[in-house]
């Protein structure tokens, strides 16, 4: 593999420009934005998992001074179109408020608009709703059974998706293999739970017929979706992208909140704002992540080489469809992980239940799938008495085999998995870890080592859409940038999305600076609103380093070419003979400075090459590298670039307490060329913390009656600084051949492998007791009970004669 190219600003230790305003408390979050006459929304929510709405009486609420309106679902549904479904499920209608019946506990039934948030909340409590409870279903396997209460009666069953793919000779590979094993693992329903809840401010201007939206949003095609639901032309919706988003990691999709506020604003002629409180966010925000049961079989040789895999993934989508079922589709692009598995059968099933609706979560289904794949490799290792690291090494795709075509149709771009693992083992001192683990065990502690190797597919093309829904013909997921030089010589780049902490302004400035050979610190990044903007798809699928980075670079190169052409014309030479450096152009002893070039571009038409447009600006709309094809025979190139990560965790559990301590945590990370080291480091560490939460703490729990048991941070536990160990990062760089600098994505890193690694470490620690956990999260309470139980049984056996 070629060594990384040398850059001036790319990969340099430079500050992240966004940070200055944040440390001063000067962020511009949606709750900080106010408009004159603004009304506030509060909501009445269903206490039932499923119920018919007999009657909504808002009269007492309306009588409260300061209350302007009480809105129910029937009125709303008559005035707006249903929100978009990803799959072709025409009878699964979803609106901002329940229409006719409620489908989960917490579903919004009525909305109040009032002068203040406090009045709105007082009024919401005065809304009287008469319900007639209906049968409900919470468990995905029960929902799958014929005769289970359908969440959407007209849809006919609870099955949103049931699709089986067979890639390669699965039956033959199983028949030929010496061994096979089967198991079940369960990924509990968790989410990213940003500290800022979702919020939106909608202002309808009846005179200009424009809907202005400020929102805490991270949603592809957001403006389009709002326009469709509101039955407006696309250019009637202006989404402001200069809103700082207080964390998202996938979930801030807020269409239902936005349509609700937009309708109320149009109805009442006032700006209307809804900021979720934490309760709304947890129970009603429709922001839960995958909730998945995996049944896996693998066929393997006596040497531990995995030849084939059958995976059945049953996902509990909750009460509505949305984009959630697509989270079963993205993992198809890395369905064999970093391994040379010859054939795969994959059955993806998504069912509706009476839980809150699911939304995109960091990795879009990849982290749960990685957990299942890694559990398989651990079980193969255990079955053969092999070291789990060695088992992975034996199965890895080798560096000389890239680009590598996996059975499901994706060609991995590049990687050197063995090199990353070697670096991690050397850095960690793996042999010493094994000695430490065994000596801890000898001293009466429970100790285990967890391992996970996985990929981060990045640069998303959204190819899972046509793969799972044949009526969808999406083959592009473009991103854009415009770069201009003003008449005073200052450079401005544009980005066309909100950001939720990814540092896009730093990214774009760094890339433009590299292309134009000028200090990125002198480049401003602007965020035009959606009406002044260019095509884009928001920061999803670990795509912005590749796609915004690529678009900004190409736009800047076009501008550089224009400057060079201006110089060549004035030097009467070929553009190829011009030397461009640090903003000035020279040839044959003559130099035009940056100021000269800017002056010609803006003021001296007579000095421009014939036919050249005056002014200095260029833009680029970038297509996904390797994208552009529709699926064929159930195969498609899912994502272009594939980052690699290798986790090694040493976990120690005091058997008397049952609390797992992650004593050492090392990750080897290869995301190709890093554009800003601080940003990649933060993403990786943050992703690991999020993954530790998913492995040990975080879960949205429902009881059998459909009541949600973890609605607050007292029940849904988030990792604090106490729970997150010091993490050591070992870097490796295998550039992608598909991107301008060799960069790959890193926004989901850490989270994609940490749950598997931590769960593996806990199960290794429990091995001497003969117990293991096959469901995440492994909460301290369950762990302590299981250890006490296992030790009690062991003591009982010992005490018997």
């Amino acid at each position, binding site marked *: 593999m070629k060594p990384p190219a040398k850059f001036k600003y790319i990969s340099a230790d430079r*500050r*992240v420009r*966004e*940070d*200055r*305003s*944040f*440390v*001063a*408390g*000067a*962020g511009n*979050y949606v*709750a*900080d934005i106010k408009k004159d006459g603004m009304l506030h929304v509060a909501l009445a929510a269903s206490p039932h998992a499923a119920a018919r709405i007999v009657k909504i009486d808002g009269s007492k609420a309306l009588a409260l001074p300061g209350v302007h309106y009480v809105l129910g679902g029937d009125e709303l549904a008559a005035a707006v179109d249903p929100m978009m479904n990803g799959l072709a499920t025409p009878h699964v209608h979803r609106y901002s408020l329940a229409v006719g019946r409620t489908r989960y506990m917490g579903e919004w039934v009525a909305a109040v608009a009032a002068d203040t948030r*406090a009045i709105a909340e007082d009024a919401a409590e005065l809304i009287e709703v008469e319900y007639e409870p209906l049968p409900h279903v919470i468990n995905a396997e029960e929902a799958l059974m014929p005769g289970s209460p359908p969440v959407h009666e007209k849809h006919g069953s609870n099955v949103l998706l049931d699709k089986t793919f067979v890639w390669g000779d699965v039956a033959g590979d199983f028949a030929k293999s010496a061994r096979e094993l089967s198991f079940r693992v369960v990924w509990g329903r968790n989410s*990213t*739970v*940003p*500290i*800022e*809840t979702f919020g939106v401010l909608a202002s309808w201007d009846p005179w200009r017929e424009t809907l202005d939206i400020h929102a805490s949003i991270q949603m592809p095609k957001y403006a389009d979706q709002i326009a469709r639901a509101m039955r407006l032309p696309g250019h009637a919706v202006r989404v402001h992208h200069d809103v*700082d*988003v*207080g*964390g*998202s*990691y996938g979930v801030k999709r807020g269409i239902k909140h936005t349509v609700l506020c937009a309708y109320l604003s149009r109805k009442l002629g006032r700006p209307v704002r809804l*900021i979720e*409180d*934490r309760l709304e966010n947890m129970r009603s925000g429709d922001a839960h992540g995958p909730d998945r049961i995996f049944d896996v079989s693998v066929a393997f040789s006596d040497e531990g080489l995995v030849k084939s895999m059958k995976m059945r993934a049953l996902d509990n989508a909750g009460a509505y469809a949305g984009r959630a079922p697509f989270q079963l589709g993205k993992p198809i692009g890395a369905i064999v992980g970093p391994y040379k598995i010859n054939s795969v059968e994959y059955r993806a099933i998504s069912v509706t239940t009476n839980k809150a609706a699911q939304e995109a979560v960091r990795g879009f289904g990849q982290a749960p799938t990685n957990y299942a794949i890694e559990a398989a490799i651990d079980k193969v290792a255990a079955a053969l008495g092999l070291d789990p690291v060695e088992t992975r090494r034996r199965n890895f795709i080798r560096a000389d085999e890239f680009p590598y075509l996996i059975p499901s149709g994706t060609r991995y771009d590049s990687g050197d998995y063995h090199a990353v693992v070697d670096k991690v083992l050397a850095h960690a001192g793996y042999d010493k870890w094994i000695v430490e683990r065994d000596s801890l065990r000898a001293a009466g502690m429970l100790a285990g080592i967890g391992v996970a190797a996985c990929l981060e597919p990045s640069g998303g093309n959204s190819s899972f859409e046509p793969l799972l829904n044949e009526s969808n013909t999406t083959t592009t997921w473009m991103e854009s940038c415009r770069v201009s030089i003003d008449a005073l010589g200052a450079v401005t780049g544009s980005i066309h999305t909100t950001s*939720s*902490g*990814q*540092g896009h302004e730093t990214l774009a400035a760094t890339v433009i600076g590299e292309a134009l050979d000028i200090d990125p610190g002198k480049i401003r990044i602007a965020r035009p609103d959606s009406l002044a903007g260019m095509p884009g798809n928001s920061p999803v699928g670990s795509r912005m380093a590749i796609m915004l980075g690529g678009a900004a670079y190409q736009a800047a190169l076009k501008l550089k070419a224009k400057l060079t052409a201006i110089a060549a014309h004035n030097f009467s030479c070929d553009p190829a003979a011009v030397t461009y450096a640090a903003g000035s152009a020279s040839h044959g002893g003559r130099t035009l400075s940056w100021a000269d070039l800017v002056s010609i571009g803006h003021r001296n038409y007579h000095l421009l090459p014939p036919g050249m447009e005056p002014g200095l600006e260029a833009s680029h709309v970038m297509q996904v590298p390797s994208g552009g094809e529709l699926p064929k025979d159930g195969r498609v190139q899912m994502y272009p670039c594939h980052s690699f990560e290798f986790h090694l965790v040493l976990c120690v559990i005091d058997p008397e307490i049952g609390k797992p301590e992650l004593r050492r945590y090392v990750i080897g990370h290869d995301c190709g060329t890093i554009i800003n080291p*601080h*940003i990649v*480091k*933060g*993403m990786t*560490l*943050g*992703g*690991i*913390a*999020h993954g530790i939460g998913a492995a040990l703490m975080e879960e949205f729990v429902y009881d059998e009656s459909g009541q949600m048991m973890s609605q*607050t*941070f*007292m029940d849904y536990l*988030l*990792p*604090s*600084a*106490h729970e*997150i160990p*010091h*993490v050591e990062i070992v870097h490796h760089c295998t550039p992608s051949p598909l991107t301008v600098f060799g960069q790959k994505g890193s926004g989901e890193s*850490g989270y994609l492998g940490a749950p598997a690694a931590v769960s593996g470490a806990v199960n290794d620690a429990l091995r001497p007791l003969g117990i293991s956990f096959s469901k995440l999260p492994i909460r301290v309470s369950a762990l302590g009970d299981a250890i006490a139980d296992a030790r009690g049984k062991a003591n009982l056996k010992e005490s018997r004669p």
Partner: protein
Amino acid sequence: MNITLRVNGAARAIDTEPRVTLLDALRDNLGLTGTHAGCEHGVCGACTVLIDGEPARACLMFAVQADGYEITTIEGMAPAPGELSVIQDAFCETHAMQCGYCTPGMVLTARALLQRNPSPGRDEIVSAISGNICRCTGYGQIIEAIALAARRLARSNTPGVTP
């Protein structure tokens, strides 16, 4: 009720209902939007302010209870507009944030820690910020920032520099 809050060194008179939290009063009555609402039940720490120099949850305190105390919000941290304090600068140096939402609470918590303990070890930093939840960073770069700020303050030749 008419109350007077002393915020960032200035007396601010406001008229508020008794049920209004200090968080809402700071944001809505005084326009100090750097203090953020996260959970509004005292767990996440996004609304942290300093009350007589000690970190407190502005969501768990009524504005009327804060009458008579010295309140410091994030807007009181920077020595001058556009100029960062040592702690704020250290947060920028290590990129101790991503989305920035928990950051004001983290910065104020760090200030209280460093005023109490000028050279905290890793465990002391972890304990100090364990009441502030960050979903972006995994805390690593925040811990680095606070340690860096402590080193810089210790090396500073200017006595009385604000952390």
